């Protein structure tokens, strides 16, 4: 088992390296001069020259890459040109907000998706199932930002019960914090749950055809136990995997949602960096998000093998 993990870790290293390389290459896509682009209208020949030497832009590409990489490895992602703040520091400040949003969104999606998935599987092909599955399919075609606008209109503009923007830190006022997170999390959860529901429903329908379900019925077990213990457990692996992958994806910051609702998260940091041409922050931020994504995927992969007892204990 440990050997198995060790092998996966070994595979991880080249992937992470490739990620840093790709990030660096993307950053080099900039046509024209980086310093010039960053300074914008504040560009004077002196400023530009100063910034160029500060950033080491005169060095050849591979040297710049190694220099950057060596900094990244020890946590030096550079410094924001605009605010002077260390990039990693800025990320660390924004990360809790994104994580909170991601957790609430996932929780919401699971709370809606799992029961409905079980319900639809238990009553496959009934009218209820068809209606819910159809609704789920429809929702899959709605992007989160569209739903966000709908929700803002309904709850903020029309009913006035929830704020359209704004964020209060949890430590400052838990209630206000959660209130400010309701709409953002809902926008994400409501477009996530259809996928989860469909996955669970499909897996459970397959499982319910298995012999051991017939056996459980022949043992005279209660229907509830058969559904929630015998059927749900083997069907949940794909669901867990997908949820884990979503977590990774949403760490990227539900960029759009954070922007719409003005949440000071990681995604918004990236957007602001783009708007203000703060390319150092952008480069560092993208790298951080990508590395986090790879690591979360890796952990989810491991989790999957741990959860399934067939894989955990090897073939009998």
């Amino acid at each position, binding site marked *: 088992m440990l050997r198995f993990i060790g092998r996966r870790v070994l595979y991880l290293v080249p992937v992470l390296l490739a990620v840093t390389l790709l990030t660096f290459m993307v950053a080099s896509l900039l046509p024209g001069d980086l310093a010039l682009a960053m300074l914008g209208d504040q560009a004077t020949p002196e400023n530009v020259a100063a910034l160029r030497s500060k950033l080491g832009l005169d060095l050849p590409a591979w040297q710049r890459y190694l220099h950057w990489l060596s900094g990244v490895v020890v946590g030096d992602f550079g410094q924001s040109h605009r605010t002077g703040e260390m990039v990693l520091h800025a990320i660390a400040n924004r990360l809790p907000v994104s994580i909170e949003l991601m957790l609430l969104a996932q929780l919401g999606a699971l709370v809606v998706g799992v029961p409905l998935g079980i319900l639809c599987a238990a009553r496959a092909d009934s009218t209820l199932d068809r209606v819910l599955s159809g609704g789920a399919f429809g929702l899959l075609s709605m992007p989160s930002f569209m739903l966000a606008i709908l929700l803002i209109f309904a709850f903020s503009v029309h009913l006035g019960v929830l704020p359209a923007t704004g964020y209060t830190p949890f430590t400052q006022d838990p209630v206000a914090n959660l209130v400010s997170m309701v709409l953002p999390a809902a926008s994400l959860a409501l477009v996530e749950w259809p996928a989860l529901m469909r996955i669970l429903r499909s897996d459970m329908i397959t499982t319910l055809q298995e012999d051991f379900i017939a056996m459980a019925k*022949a043992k*005279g077990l209660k229907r509830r136990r058969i559904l929630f213990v015998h059927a749900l457990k083997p069907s949940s692996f794909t669901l867990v995997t997908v949820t884990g992958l979503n977590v990774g994806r949403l760490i990227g910051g539900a960029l759009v949602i954070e922007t719409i609702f003005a949440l000071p998260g990681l995604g918004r940091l990236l957007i602001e960096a783009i708007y203000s041409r703060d390319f150092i922050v952008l480069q560092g931020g993208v790298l951080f998000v990508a590395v986090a994504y790879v690591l979360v995927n890796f952990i989810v992969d491991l989790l999957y093998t741990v959860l399934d*007892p067939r894989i955990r204990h090897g073939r*009998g």
Partner: protein
Amino acid sequence: MTLALLEVDNLCVELPTVRGPLRALAGVSLRLERGRSLGVVGESGSGKTMLSRAILQLLPPRAKVSGSTRFDGKTLQALAPEALRALRGKEIAVVFQDPMTSLNPVLTIGSQIVETLLEHLGLAASAARLRAVELLASVGIPEPERRAGQYPHQLSGGMRQRVAIAIALSCEPRLLLADEPTTALDVTVQAQILDLLARERSRRNMAMMLITHDLGIVAGRTDAVIVMYAGRVMERAATRVLFKQMRHPYTEALLAAIPKVEDAPHTPLAAIGGTPPDPTRPAPGCPFAPRCRYGRDDCREAMPGLAGLGDHQFACWHPLAQRPLPWRRDGR
């Protein structure tokens, strides 16, 4: 006549399929007394598995069922779902064919025994766990405490089937339906499992229905046998009578198909030529007629009913002559 534990009366099961209605059982009747064992023999598609499902009332909801099944005097079709649920696992237990698929792969062995005990006997959790370990030991599983915490795939096929038997016996059922319990196992293990079943049966005075395609298995292990083909009972008799004085050509063909130790090497297997009839297109006459070596025209025209003397009945227009039949390949 005493009340039999299990009485099945003209049971017919029809399933709707894409190709039309499938007649799985076409009027099956049988009686099983307390503590007796009945062998149900037939090829795949003869309806024998459908019979066990029908008895348990575990048919798919779209199935059309007629006839009656009575357990201990109670008509099972008339029972409410809750009452049926209370019967299953407690009074009537099942052992399925393939223990790899009939045991839940993601639950421990122990929990799969315990849940039955908790459901039907209302034991406390700790008492149930102890009882589960006892049961595992009684079916011959070494290191039962350790095994109780393991998952099905960690056990060998034979051990898994022992677990399935332990589960079936856990609530002291009065009737055990063993549906091809040894088909999925190695030959060396088959005898052990059958012996285990026989031992437990006599110890508990439990009625047992042993369903199999192998006529050889029921010899010496059952009190009576019914031979099924195409959803019907073709012959029924006490076991010894059946083997000594079989009257139905199908029974004879089944027996002849069993390879014998005393045969010379390379003796060709006397397989029954042809295939079973399509259950969605039932023919008017005897279903075995196309494959029967004695088949005549009137066999194809009308279906013979079960007739015979006393406990020995057979459904054939031209049954074999009534004399002890030697086990000969040429069927004379």
